[in-house]
């Protein structure tokens, strides 16, 4: 059973509308497991005759060439360079062309990184599935000629391809994680950590590039009622005022996001443990800054999960304190999440930033996968990697992506302080 989250659609907005946070629909589809690209029933490869394997071998050199092109780093200024939506048709086409040019470079880099992994690892069915996903996505975007991006109709077709790509890759992390757990005998933890770090960081940018264009497209063209996922699910949208530029909310209020993440995480706690820790916000709760709600929401959910779980397990009644401060020198913020959950032991401290599969011992594989299955079933949000220990390193990758930082200080025997700093961007 494969679960697909339409998070990406939830962030894509039409004019001034935004989805209520965490109101996504879970769609379960029964798909046959094959080693070919899975779940692509809706996407039609342009080269019908060639299998994915043959196509990739034919295009091996081209992929290498693309991968060696310079990687255009995404920064927040780039993302908002077209101004507030609705964009003019010209700007939208420029955005489409830029995406068409840069996305293949990013996809190729991932393909090259994957294909250079040891044979035995990429043969693992999960890793192989991800590898094929990337090949399929690259093929579908390459088969759309950039020269045809001259009118809105073509732009719509292109956006649909992007939507499909985003959907395909929404489950990459848990699938890769599962694959690497199964392969841990065949590579050192250091090798896999280094691969994953690079891969996940680049993935953030790749996804963002695609999602940003999709969001800009929707907010510049579609009617709200027509927003449907490619698989027929609908998404509820809520009127909010036009503070969004694509995936960026120029007036994001962290305090609001903290409260909604806390209520979500609190619910899980209540279900699992029967108690719900309290949370108090101090400092500057009214502060707002331009940022991507998706990223911040992910980070906050992970950090609050850690804080809540620690508090519950320590039977702590004191609330978790979140302090928000506006940076006086930049358009950024810093946040401190302070819990009294007993802290992190000195033995564990060096490991908190590693992808936790590195600490699995023999015989734990089944437990880990069991946890994985359980958490996937019960977690209502996109981070179905709960329990696998990816939360901290991945949150840090997100935080650092636009020049921010995430650090942890612990007083073992008392509690932990987590510091999140994010830079905003100057928006007119």
């Amino acid at each position, binding site marked *: 059973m494969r679960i697909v989250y339409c998070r990406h659609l939830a962030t894509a907005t039409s004019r001034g509308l935004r989805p209520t946070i965490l109101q996504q629909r879970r769609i379960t589809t029964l798909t046959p497991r094959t080693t070919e690209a899975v779940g692509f029933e809706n996407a039609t490869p342009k080269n019908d005759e060639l299998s994915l394997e043959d196509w990739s071998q034919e295009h091996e050199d081209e992929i290498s060439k693309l991968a060696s092109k310079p990687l255009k780093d995404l920064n927040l200024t780039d993302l908002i360079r077209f101004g507030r939506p609705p964009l003019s048709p010209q700007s939208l086409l420029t955005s489409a062309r830029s995406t068409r040019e840069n996305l293949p470079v990013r996809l190729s880099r991932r393909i090259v990184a994957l294909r250079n992994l040891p044979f035995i690892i990429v043969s693992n069915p999960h890793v192989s599935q991800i590898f094929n996903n990337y090949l399929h996505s690259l093929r579908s975007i390459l088969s759309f000629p950039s020269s045809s991006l001259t009118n809105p109709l073509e732009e719509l077709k292109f956006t649909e391809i992007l939507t499909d790509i985003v959907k395909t890759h929404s489950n990459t992390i848990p699938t890769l994680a599962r694959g690497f757990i199964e392969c841990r005998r065949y590579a050192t933890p250091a090798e896999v950590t280094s691969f994953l770090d690079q891969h996940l960081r680049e993935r953030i940018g790749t996804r963002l590039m695609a999602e940003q264009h999709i969001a800009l497209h929707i907010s510049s063209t579609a009617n709200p009622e027509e927003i449907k996922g490619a698989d027929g699910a609908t998404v509820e949208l809520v009127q909010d005022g036009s503070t969004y530029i694509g995936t960026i909310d120029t007036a994001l209020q962290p305090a609001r996001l903290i409260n909604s993440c806390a209520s979500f995480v609190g619910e899980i706690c209540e279900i699992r443990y029967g108690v719900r820790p309290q949370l108090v916000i101090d*400092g*500057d709760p009214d502060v707002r800054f331009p940022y991507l709600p998706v990223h911040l929401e992910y980070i906050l959910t992970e950090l609050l999960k850690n804080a809540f779980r620690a508090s519950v397990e320590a039977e702590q009644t004191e609330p978790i304190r979140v*302090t928000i*401060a*506006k*940076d*006086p*020198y930049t358009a950024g913020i*810093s*946040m*401190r999440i302070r819990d009294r959950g007993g*802290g992190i032991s*000195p033995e564990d401290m060096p490991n908190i930033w590693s992808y936790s599969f590195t600490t699995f011992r023999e015989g734990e594989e089944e437990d880990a996968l069991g946890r994985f299955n359980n958490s996937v079933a019960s977690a209502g949000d996109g981070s179905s990697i709960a329990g696998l220990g990816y939360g901290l390193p991945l949150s840090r990758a997100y935080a650092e992506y636009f020049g921010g930082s995430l*650090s942890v*200080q612990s*007083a*073992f*025997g*008392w509690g932990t*302080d987590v*510091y999140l*700093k994010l830079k905003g961007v100057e928006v007119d």
Partner: protein
Amino acid sequence: MLTKIKRPASSAIRRFTNSNYTINNNGGKVTRGVQTALATRYQSNTRWRSSTVLDDWVAKPARPISLRQLIFFGGRGLDDKRIINSANYVRTELPTRLAHRIRDMQKLPYVVVTNKHLSYVYDLYYSAFDSFRSVPHIKTTEDNDRFCTKIKAALKEHLTVIPRLAMGVLECRNLLPADELDKFMHALLRSRISRRVIAEQHLALTDTFNSPFHFNDGRNYQPGDFVGEVFLKCKAQEVIRRVGAYAQELARKAHGPDCPVPEIIIEGHLDTTFPYILSHLEYITGELLRNSIEATIEHHGSKRELPPIHVLICHAPKHVIFRVSDQGGGIPADETKDLWSFAKSKRSDDKRLRNFAKVPKMAGTLQELQEGPPELRDHEGSLSSLHTLTYRPPDLKLGMGLPLTRVYAEYWGGSLEQTSMEGYGTDMFLHIEKLGNRLEQLNVDRL
């Protein structure tokens, strides 16, 4: 003692050399005029010594000691034999450690070591080395008493080393890369702490041996509470209260009675008690609290009520952790990287140099030192340079409080780290290893 040959004042040399040659970045074009000058210097130079003596001592490794050893050595009943053992340990350790530092200084660029402050320290160290290496093997308690007198004199004479070093480093900041200067300062200060620890410990043990019930200040210490300088029962909460109250009082004196001063709220494991060298703990926590108080006052200006400083005391199986959280506005990101450096500072360096000269009893004569106020004396009634640092007035900004604090914190294997939220405040985390199983971190760089 070697007789000193008169040599030209170093300032004269400097004037002469500055106008007669240029140093380029690769280190040294020298004109003919200067060759003559150097020859003159060489003839009257007292610094070239017969190398073999120093070489012998440099070759000996230092024998580090841990806090635990310090405690157990003195704790199990002192007798003649133990005191004499202790004396002979100190007798050989002091010149060994001094020799290592002298060699370090000898390897620094000539222009740096001839700075008037650094050359003062160099000469001081060299004469201490000569003095201690010639002490014969100690066999009786009378020998030990003579030895202790010598130690006391040296400790007093060397009280001015820290500000001299700091001034010298500041004046030389353009002559050597900052991180090399930092490394040098770090090693020197760490070694200095180590020599004073073993020296003061031995003095304290001798005192206890000679008169077991001698405590002359008002505080209620039981005889077994101290093993020399190590206070077995540092009560974390009590230390913070005392040091915090003093820091608050100093702030009131400096800013005027109308200026509000932030409250210090202590929370956590309030009963935490652990063995440590009390003066070290007082210095470190004092420094952190002073910084927090100053920052809070500066950041919130004229408000009536200032946000309090929260001190957390946390007791873990192997550590004691202090967390000092203030709302003093935080430290800007671009200053954070130089926070721990001796060589770099955000404050204007000229002002720092002037301030150093004002630190009470640090640059002063022996006369001033003997007249110090009661609060500058430790539990044994003697003066220590650490106390003058701990209790200096708040408007004396030396710019090296944090780096020096860190040297002390790391001395027994602990650590000091800071995290700031710009625009809000700073959290300082002090980790202390309990019972100090760690040997002194004498040679961390070279491990």
